[in-house]
C-alpha cells in the first residue's frame, strides 16, 4: 500500500485516493499535421517501461483531482520524490534511454 504525498493538498493520503496515469513528461507533438505514422505511434502507444526509476503522472482522483508527478522505483516500489507538473525531477536514473 502506497502512502502518497499530494503536493497540492500538502498531505499524505492512501493509495486508493490516487490513480496512476502512466509515464510523465510526454510532450504533445508541436506540429501534429506533419507527424509521420511512426511519430504518432510512438507518441500514442510507446512508453518507457523501466525496471528501476520511473517518472510517472498520478492524479489525486478522489481528492483534489489535480495531477502531479512521482519518481518511483518499479522494483522496490519506493517513492523517491513527488513534484508538481511543470517541474523537473531531481532524482534521475544515470542510465540513458531507459
Amino acid at each position: 500500500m502506497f502512502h502518497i504525498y499530494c503536493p497540492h493538498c500538502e498531505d499524505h493520503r492512501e493509495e486508493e485516493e490516487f490513480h496512476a496515469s502512466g509515464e510523465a513528461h510526454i510532450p504533445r507533438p508541436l506540429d501534429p499535421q506533419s507527424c509521420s505514422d511512426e511519430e504518432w505511434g510512438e507518441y500514442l502507444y510507446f512508453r518507457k517501461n523501466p525496471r528501476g526509476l520511473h517518472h510517472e503522472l498520478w492524479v489525486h482522483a478522489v481528492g483534489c483531482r489535480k495531477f502531479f508527478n512521482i519518481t518511483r522505483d518499479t522494483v522496490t516500489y519506493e517513492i523517491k520524490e513527488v513534484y508538481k507538473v511543470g517541474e523537473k525531477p531531481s532524482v534521475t536514473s544515470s542510465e540513458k534511454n531507459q
Partner: protein
Amino acid sequence: MEKYSGFGLFTHSLSCHENWQRVWRNPQPKKKYDVIIVGGGGHGLATAYYLAKVHNITNVAVVEKGYLGGGNTARNTTIVRSNYLWDESAHLYEHAMKLWEGLSQDLNYNVMFSQRGVLNLGHTLQDMRDIERRVNANRLNGIDGEVLDAKQIQELVPAMDCSANTRYPVMGASWQPRAGVARHDAVAWGYARAADALGVDLIQQCEVVDIVTEDGAAVGVETKQYGTIKADRVGCVVAGNSGVLAKMAGFRLPLESHPLQALVSEPIKPVLDTVVMSNHVHGYISQSDKGDLVIGAGIDGYNGYGQRGSYPTIEHTVQAIMELFPIFSRVRMNRQWGGIVDTCPDACPIISATPVENLFFNCGWGTGGFKATPGSGHVFAATLAQGEASKLAKPFSMFRFYDGSLIDEHGAAGVAH
C-alpha cells in the same frame, strides 16, 4: 523418453517408484543453435516443442534465467477459454482451444484439462448487449457460446447469489461449455518433457544479458553463465521482461509491465464445478481439484516489476466475490501472490518480427496468456521456422501500433481474463 501409461505406473510400483527416468536432461549449451528461445515459460516451451515436432527444427535451445515454468505459468488462475470478440483474436484463441483438447495425448502428459465451462456474468443492460454481441460473433467464428438468463445460471451454479437483492444483480451471462481450466505447472512440464525428448536443449539458470547483433541482424545471445551462444534466429518469450530485452536489442515495445495478483483459499469440499467471471464487479473464481478456491484480481494500475500486488486490489476482488458468493464469507484465504504481466495498449499480444532481423518477439499477452499457451507456441514456432509471421500471427505484428490496425479487445472480451 519413457512413455507414461497406467501399465508403466503399475510396473514402477513394483520397484517402489524409485526408478523413474528423469523428466528432462540438463545439458550444457552448444556453441550454436538454429533457434534460441529466450524464456522457459509455457509459451517458450510450447514454441520449442512445436518447432521440433511440426517444423522438424530440433537444434533448438530454450534459455531460462530461473527455472522452467517459474514465472507467470506458475502464477495464473489457469482459466482457458476462447470467447473473444474480434475475428483475429477469436481465431488465435480458438486455435489454442483446439490444441488444448488433444494436448494431454499429444504430450503424453496429463495437463488435467477440464472443460467445465466458463460463465462471463452480466450485471447491467449494457453488459447483456455486449454479451449477446460477443456470443453471436463467437458463433459466427465457430466458437461455442450461449447467452443464459439468471435462472439458468442459478441452476448451473447453485452456490451463487443470483437473486435481485444484491447490489449488482446478475442479469445473465455468456456460457462457453468447452472452456475450463488446466493444471498450469503440468502444461510447462509436459511441453518441456516432450520438447526435450525431441532433442531441444533446455538450459536453466542461464540469464540473457544482451542480444548479439551484426549488421542489424541478431546472431545470438550473450549470457551471464555461458558467454555467447550463437543462433540463426532468436525468439523472445519473456512476458514482463520483454521491454528489458527489446531495449538490449535497441528498440521499444508498446508494453507496460504491471503486477497482477491471484489468491487461493484453504481447501474446501466441492462447491463450484465451473468457472465464474464477472467483468462488472471484477473478480473471477473457480475451484481446483485440490479443493481450494482460486480467485483472480485485476492488475495494479501502476507499472511494477515486484512480483506482489497491492492490498486495495485484493480487497476489491474479495468484495466482488463475496457479493456473488455470500456462502464463502467464512472461507479463509491461504496464499496470495503476484506476477508481472506485459500489457499492450489494445489488450492483444504481439507475435512479430522486429526492427532487428532474425529477432522475433512473442509478448504482450497481458492478463490472459495462459489460455493461449498451445496456440501461442504453435504460431510462434511457425513464425520462427518461416522467418516471417504465420497467417494467424500476422494481425499481431508490433507494427500495428504505427499503422493503426489495433485489435481492440479491451472490454470486448471482458477485462477479467
